[in-house]
């Protein structure tokens, strides 16, 4: 019954999305205002219906998990009776089918919110916006209905003979049974999926030809929201890795981690470049490109996670549906660049094509030549597509790339012959550029570095496939590569974080620069010897220069913080002088009256704090390993760790843990008992290996991180020795704090103004209420 309800919900949702697609396009093309309104309202209700049906479907699935409905294959596959109820709920996205349903549900939420009360300024492009949203929904609903249906009933392939429904489930992957896993995937999905909204608006602007800055203004808050959640999702993944994987860190440049970072980087570039379009009318075409590639990269990230073409710690998410994502990605890019092309932005269309084509070559030739194929599907209802489809895609891609190469080259020749002016360009900006020392220039450098950083991460991630496809050499590209390539780009971005906001628009005079930067530069300069004396000098020197990289990064963090504090101080002081408010009230009112500006500063401060935390925790971590018997002690950085006892703890039907009780004392005073443990989860057919779960003492200075690596004799816990691994991570707490500040800053940026809260004016035409 529940399975039927779920199946019908997603099937009807698919029908509604398909209808919305047609109705949206019809409304967009209708000439008659009334007819347009009628079809638009219909498309709007279509998206609302998709939302209701998807909400019903996910509700049914959650109910099935909580009530142990093992008749549903997916519920059996991802849970068991012994699991605590909160993990039963998070098991909904523990496997592929459910996580796709969650994706669809989040997408349907965005669809409904997008059309619920659109801004009047973009009212005319909303039908197309709904149509593009519907295309995306149709794709995901097709997947959920026909290849990864979470409501499938009956034994999976290979286990056809088993008694059905079984009395208990297989259980969830042990690594996913962590509270951060209840937050990390939904936050990440809200971010990833949210990037669809700017894409919908951008595409709608392109389709309708209404290419002024209205869509940019309408989309800014959506993008900020999605970008914030993507950033928080990434950080929550870091916390999960830190608290669960016990590899001594929170970021490993794993391909799937990289896949989430890449759209975040291009999204950051977009959030900055929209300002330049709003203020100066520049970069109209470039913003379109950023919107399209950010969306494409979010789909590409999902493709990387699911396809298994790259070795990753996220192997639990792999299956055979990667090629479907690839096809969808290609279609969306063709749609995007096709409209860009129609609107006269030939060069960007060419860039996007080359980008797509490059990825496709890597993927297809990588597979054909090296025999890398997606692994056998973990879930039985995810068949591989026929190989022939890939050849067809290759042919299409070749044809499109060839055509684009012809058009782009002829257009470039035309530009040079025609004094730099394209023949026709609806996206031509009101380009005015006066000085290299201006905020416009700072924004351009920002975009250049962010897109460059995104490219560097993408390139490094795909480098093993590329090298194998081109030269047949098998290589690995992991932390040692990224830790060399990314820090210089990161440092340049960090520096720009401090400099950019304080440079005026149009052009800066030496006087401006002196007024804005004299104090922050002095503070940063003064911090250098202080940091040196505090011991920030241990990592590698930069060539012959006796200054360590970490010292430069931390001094730049000080500089950025000083610029922000200086800005707040100057603003509050001016307001205090003007209004007579107290400094504190002036500070609050100043922030609330200039939410975007000061919210942005708060986010920039979070970035500086993040860099400081990462530098401290990664470059100055200390590691000690030791075998300990009960009563033995280990000393590290003034802490005395004494193994008190090793005990066993059981939660019937769920897990069994070997727990080391380690007393932690500092300067002879006992602080607490840390309990690193090894969990063994119960469950049919699951990996029964022990999973070490670290115990952590968080302090602002450093974290004491204990991992129980081995229990020599689990049968005699009174006298057994253990192998304990201890890390000291300086400043890691600030990485997480920076996430909270990042969230606060973005919240401030997103707060609506009084003008925005005003209800739109409505008129009635032949009984239809329309917004002006």
């Amino acid at each position, binding site marked *: 019954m529940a399975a039927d309800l779920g199946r019908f919900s997603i099937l009807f949702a698919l029908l509604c999305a398909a209808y919305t697609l047609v109705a949206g396009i019809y409304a967009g093309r209708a000439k008659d205002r009334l007819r347009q309104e009628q079809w638009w309202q219909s498309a709007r209700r279509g998206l609302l219906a998709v939302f209701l049906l998807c909400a019903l479907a996910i509700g049914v699935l959650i109910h099935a998990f909580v009530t142990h409905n093992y008749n549903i294959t997916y519920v059996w596959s991802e849970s068991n009776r012994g699991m605590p109820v909160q993990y039963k709920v998070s098991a909904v996205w523990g496997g592929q089918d459910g996580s796709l349903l969650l994706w669809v549900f989040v997408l349907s939420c965005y669809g409904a919110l997008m059309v619920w009360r659109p801004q009047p300024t973009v009212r005319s492009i909303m039908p197309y916006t709904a149509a593009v949203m519907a295309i995306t929904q149709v794709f995901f609903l097709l997947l959920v209905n026909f290849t990864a249906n979470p409501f499938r009933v009956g034994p999976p392939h290979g286990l056809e003979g088993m008694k059905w429904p079984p009395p208990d489930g297989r259980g969830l992957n042990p690594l996913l049974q962590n509270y951060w896993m209840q937050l990390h995937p939904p936050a990440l999905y809200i971010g990833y999926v949210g990037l669809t909204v700017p894409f919908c608006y951008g595409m709608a602007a392109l389709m309708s030809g209404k290419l002024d800055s209205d869509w940019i203004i309408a989309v800014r808050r959506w993008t900020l929201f999605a970008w914030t959640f993507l950033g928080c999702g990434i950080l929550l993944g870091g916390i999960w890795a830190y608290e669960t994987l016990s590899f001594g860190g929170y970021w*490993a440049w794993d391909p799937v981690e990289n896949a989430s970072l890449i759209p975040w980087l291009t999204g950051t570039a977009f959030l900055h470049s929209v300002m330049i379009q709003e203020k100066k009318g520049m970069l109209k075409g470039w913003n379109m490109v950023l919107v399209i590639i950010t969306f494409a990269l979010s789909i590409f990230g999902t493709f990387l996670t699911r396809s298994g073409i790259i*070795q990753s710690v996220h192997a639990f998410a792999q299956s055979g549906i990667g090629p479907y994502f690839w096809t969808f990605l290609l279609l969306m890019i063709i749609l995007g660049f096709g409209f860009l092309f129609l609107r006269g932005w030939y060069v960007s269309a060419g860039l996007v094509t080359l980008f797509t084509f490059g990825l496709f070559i890597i993927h297809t030739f990588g597979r054909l030549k090296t025999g890398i194929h997606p692994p056998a599907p973990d879930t039985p209802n995810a068949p591989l597509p026929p190989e022939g489809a890939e050849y067809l895609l290759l042919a299409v891609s070749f044809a499109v790339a060839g055509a684009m190469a012809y058009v782009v080259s002829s257009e470039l020749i035309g530009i040079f012959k025609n004094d730099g002016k394209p023949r026709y360009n609806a996206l031509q900006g009101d380009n005015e550029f006066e000085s290299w020392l201006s905020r416009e220039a700072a924004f351009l450098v920002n975009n250049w570095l962010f897109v460059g950083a995104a490219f560097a991460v993408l390139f490094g991630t795909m480098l093993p496939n590329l090298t194998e496809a081109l030269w047949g050499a098998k290589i690995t590209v992991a932390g040692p590569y990224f830790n*060399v390539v990314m820090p210089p780009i990161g440092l340049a971005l960090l520096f720009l974080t401090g400099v950019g906001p304080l440079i005026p628009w149009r052009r800066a005079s030496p006087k401006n620069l002196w007024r804005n930067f004299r104090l922050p530069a002095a503070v940063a300069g003064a911090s250098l010897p202080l940091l040196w004396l505090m011991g920030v000098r241990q990592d590698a020197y930069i060539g012959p220069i006796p200054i360590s990289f970490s010292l430069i990064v931390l001094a730049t963090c000080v500089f950025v913080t000083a610029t922000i504090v200086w800005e707040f101080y100057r603003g509050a002081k001016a307001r205090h002088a003007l209004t007579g408010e107290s400094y504190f009230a002036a500070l609050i009112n100043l922030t609330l009256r200039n939410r975007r500006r000061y919210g942005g500063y708060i986010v920039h401060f979070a970035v500086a704090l993040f860099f400081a935390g990462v530098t401290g925790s990664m470059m100055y971590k200390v590691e000690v390993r030791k075998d300990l018997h009960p009563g033995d002690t280990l000393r590290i950085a003034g802490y005395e760790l004494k193994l008190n006892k090793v005990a066993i703890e059981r939660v019937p039907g769920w897990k069994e843990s070997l727990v080391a009780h380690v007393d932690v004392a500092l300067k002879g005073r006992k602080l607490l008992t840390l309990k690193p443990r090894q969990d063994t989860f119960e469950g049919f057919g699951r990996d029964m290996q022990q999973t070490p779960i670290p115990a952590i003492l968080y302090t602002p200075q450093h974290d004491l991180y204990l991992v129980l690596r081995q229990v020599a004799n689990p049968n005699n816990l009174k006298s057994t020795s253990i192998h304990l691994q201890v890390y000291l991570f300086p400043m890691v707490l600030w990485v997480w704090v920076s996430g909270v500040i990042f969230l606060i800053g973005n919240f401030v940026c997103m707060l609506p103004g009084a003008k925005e809260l005003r209800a739109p004016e409505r008129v009635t035409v032949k009984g239809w209420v329309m917004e002006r």
Partner: protein
Amino acid sequence: MKDVTSSLVCKCGCGNMLISACECTNAQVYRAIVTQQIKAGMSKEEILDSLVKMTASQKLKDLAEQVEREGAVAEAAVMEGFRQLLKEYGVERFSGFGFGDVAYFLKNCGRGEEILGAPKAQGVHLIGWTLPFILLLVSGGVIGMFLMRLKNRAIPAPSTPDSASVERSQATSSPSALSAYEARLDEELKKFDF
């Protein structure tokens, strides 16, 4: 030790974890080998080179195939063969691991350069190391040219003198007037600030 093992990755399927951070049998065997090589006085580069060569060697492949083919029957021969192989690469003493561990290592240790966390910066791999920076420089140059063109376009002389240009020409006539003009310009520019 940490420096060396942080340059190696585990290929057992745990997702390219660094050998310094991984706890699987594969990583433990690697760490034991590296410890012995450091004791033998080998440098980081020498150790990494030797491990790349060892894992790419035919002898190691033969041993792995023997394990695959004959299983535990070949225990003595495989263990002896593995010790001999390690000796060739500077490991005089290898203990604390059984046949199961060695068999696991032979199967999962990775082959050749893929055991390195990053390719060596030589040959074709130089492209991989430098391309992001080359593209950044090239794209930076293109953006610079684009801005230069915009900048040149943005300063055409007005055909008829407007009040601002008259003021500007008056302002530039004396140093004190110039600073007053700049101060006013600064004030005006502030209005553009968001």
